[in-house]
């Protein structure tokens, strides 16, 4: 097929998509409304958290440091032995454990002392708030005793260096969700075309199924990209969510995400016969993916569910997007998600090209 002909095919399909307002508007509206609601009205960041302070020193300065934490509203301070508190942390019962080591008071009298902090990293959103709060309390404590010189330093263990707010977590999740919704819709379009007979009409022209699928993929990608730009733009302009990783890896991740969802959309469209059935299956597939894939909230999965969560393509889209947007976006952290998406793409497109029927 000539390139010009192919581009005309893409343009015509993008035009159809654009005029099908309900189709692309619904997914972007869900994402934007979610962002506005969670970004402004309901912010789960500042929930109180449990902090265990293990005071192994017991000196006067150590007690006043404990008192400083107790005076903060959002911190519920508990105490206990080092080992028992650390195992509580591992079980997820504490957000953080602060250890004031023996000799803290003496070292502070010399001018400089350190405390040890362990954080629960499993909750990506809360750990940001917890680390910020702990650092802030210690800064204030330093301000009190030495006028701001770093008398007490914080030795933080097992903590990501990023300061992730909930909105930082939500934006990539909404990008993933929008990518999923619009591109699964290709299955709906395929079945509608088959039912209306327009696929039959195309079947008596020299058009190859692979060219049709490719041109649909490109036109859906264009519409999907516009949505991604809108969501990321909203996040950046209104909520100051910046992209930490490289734009190149972001582009690769978005492209793989789009291709994965198109492949699944085709898979659904190739094996079902009515638009109603396709709609039902898309919803039945999309809702579990949104929750198990962690679009809105980080999921602490029971280990029995882990294989399922790992099999869900949206999990990998979200993970890779968050790695690029929130994390550092290193290739070493991305390739596992990319590989999982690649597997879905190969599987989905191979099966759908084989099962393709004009009528």
């Amino acid at each position, binding site marked *: 097929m000539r390139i010009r002909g192919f581009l*005309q095919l893409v343009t015509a399909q993008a*035009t*159809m998509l654009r005029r099908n307002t309900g189709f692309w508007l619904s997914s972007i509206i869900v994402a934007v409304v979610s962002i506005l609601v969670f970004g402004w009205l309901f912010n789960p960041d500042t929930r109180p958290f449990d902090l265990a302070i293990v005071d192994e020193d017991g000196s006067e300065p150590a007690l006043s440091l404990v008192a400083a934490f107790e005076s903060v509203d959002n911190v519920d301070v508990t105490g206990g032995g080092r080992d028992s508190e650390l195992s509580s942390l591992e079980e997820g019962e504490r957000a953080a454990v602060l250890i004031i080591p023996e000799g803290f008071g003496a070292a502070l009298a010399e001018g400089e002392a350190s405390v040890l902090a362990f954080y629960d990293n499993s909750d990506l959103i809360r750990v940001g708030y917890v680390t910020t709060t702990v650092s802030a309390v210690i800064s204030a404590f330093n301000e009190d005793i030495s006028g701001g010189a770093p008398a007490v330093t914080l030795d933080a263990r097992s903590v990501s260096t990023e300061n992730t707010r909930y909105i930082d977590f939500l934006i990539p999740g909404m990008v993933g969700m929008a990518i999923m919704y619009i591109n699964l819709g290709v299955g709906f379009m395929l079945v509608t075309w088959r039912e209306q007979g327009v696929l039959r009409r*195309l*079947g*008596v*022209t*020299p058009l190859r199924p692979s060219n049709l699928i490719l041109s649909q993929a490109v036109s859906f990608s264009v519409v999907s990209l516009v949505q991604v730009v809108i969501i990321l733009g909203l996040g950046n302009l209104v909520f100051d969510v910046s992209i930490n990783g490289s734009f190149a890896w972001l582009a690769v991740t978005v492209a793989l995400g789009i291709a994965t969802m198109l492949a699944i959309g085709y898979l659904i469209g190739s094996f079902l016969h009515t638009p109603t059935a396709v709609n039902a299956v898309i919803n039945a597939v999309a809702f579990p993916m949104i929750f198990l894939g962690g679009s809105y909230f980080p999921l602490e999965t029971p280990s029995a569910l882990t294989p399922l969560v790992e099999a869900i393509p949206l999990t990998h889209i979200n993970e890779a997007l968050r790695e690029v947007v929130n994390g550092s976006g290193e290739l070493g952290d991305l390739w596992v998600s990319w590989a999982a998406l690649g597997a879905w793409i190969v599987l989905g497109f191979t099966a759908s090209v084989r099962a393709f029927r004009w009528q």
Partner: protein
Amino acid sequence: MMAIAEVKPANAEADSGREPVLEVAGLTKRYGKLTAVDGISFAVPRGETFGLLGPNGAGKTTTLEMIEGLRSPDAGQITLLGKDAVKQRRAVQERIGVQLQSQTLWAELTVEETLKLFAALFRKPVPIQPLMERFSLNEKRRALVRGLSGGQKQRLSIATALVNDPDIIFLDEPTTGLDPSARQSFWDLIRELQADGKTVIVTTHYMEEAEVLCDRVAIMDRGQIMALDTPRQLVRGLSFDSTVECGFSGTVPPGTLEALPAVREVKSVDSAFILFTDDVAAALAGLMEIRDDAGQRVKSLHVRTATLEDVFISHTGRRLGD
């Protein structure tokens, strides 16, 4: 008596000397136990308008779909423009134009966008502008297909079949569901195509349409071609020239109607009898003498010149519309 609506032009007789652009031999399609198309053969020379006439389910559409490349035959050969239509499907599809039975256009595209889209699928498309002018679509070029009238959609649909300047045009039941005036203007469009020297293959279950449009007609029933000739020869080939359709309130002793003078054949269709005769006056005179079991004369009577419909009835014992 009903007159045949139009008399075919002089080229109505098939000219076997012209090269065939379509040759079908032993074409067969089965769906499970049902044989939809049962070993049919025919050839169509360039420039001919060839009709497949038959009731719904006769196998007309399946035949077209195999020729167009939508279904693969279970047996038989299709040679289109000198190429094997099954093995060289795409090469053949470059050179054919197709209008399918159902309205198959995208509601969200404009007239112009629709034609551009179809043109993009072929290697050698024709310019869109003259096509729109020819089919009186120029004023509607920016209108969405959704808002077009039935006749406009029909014209656009045919225009999409012509974007590649095809050698052969296939039209499947093109006037089903059109009102009489839209049907009339559609026939005018086909005559333009004929004037351009295009080969047209058309399926229909309207006897009148086949008589008006087609150079030759194949009458199909249950997957087979029952008869194939020019409409005039098909009718002439009958052993009668008129039909007398009659009904009685009661029952008539069997064999009574068959024994009437000049009656060649009697078919019982629904509750009526159809008498085929070559002497209407003699047949009617005889018919007037007949009484049913209650002593009543003939109750309903309809006399007409033999048509293609009678050719179908004489072959199948059923009406086309059934």
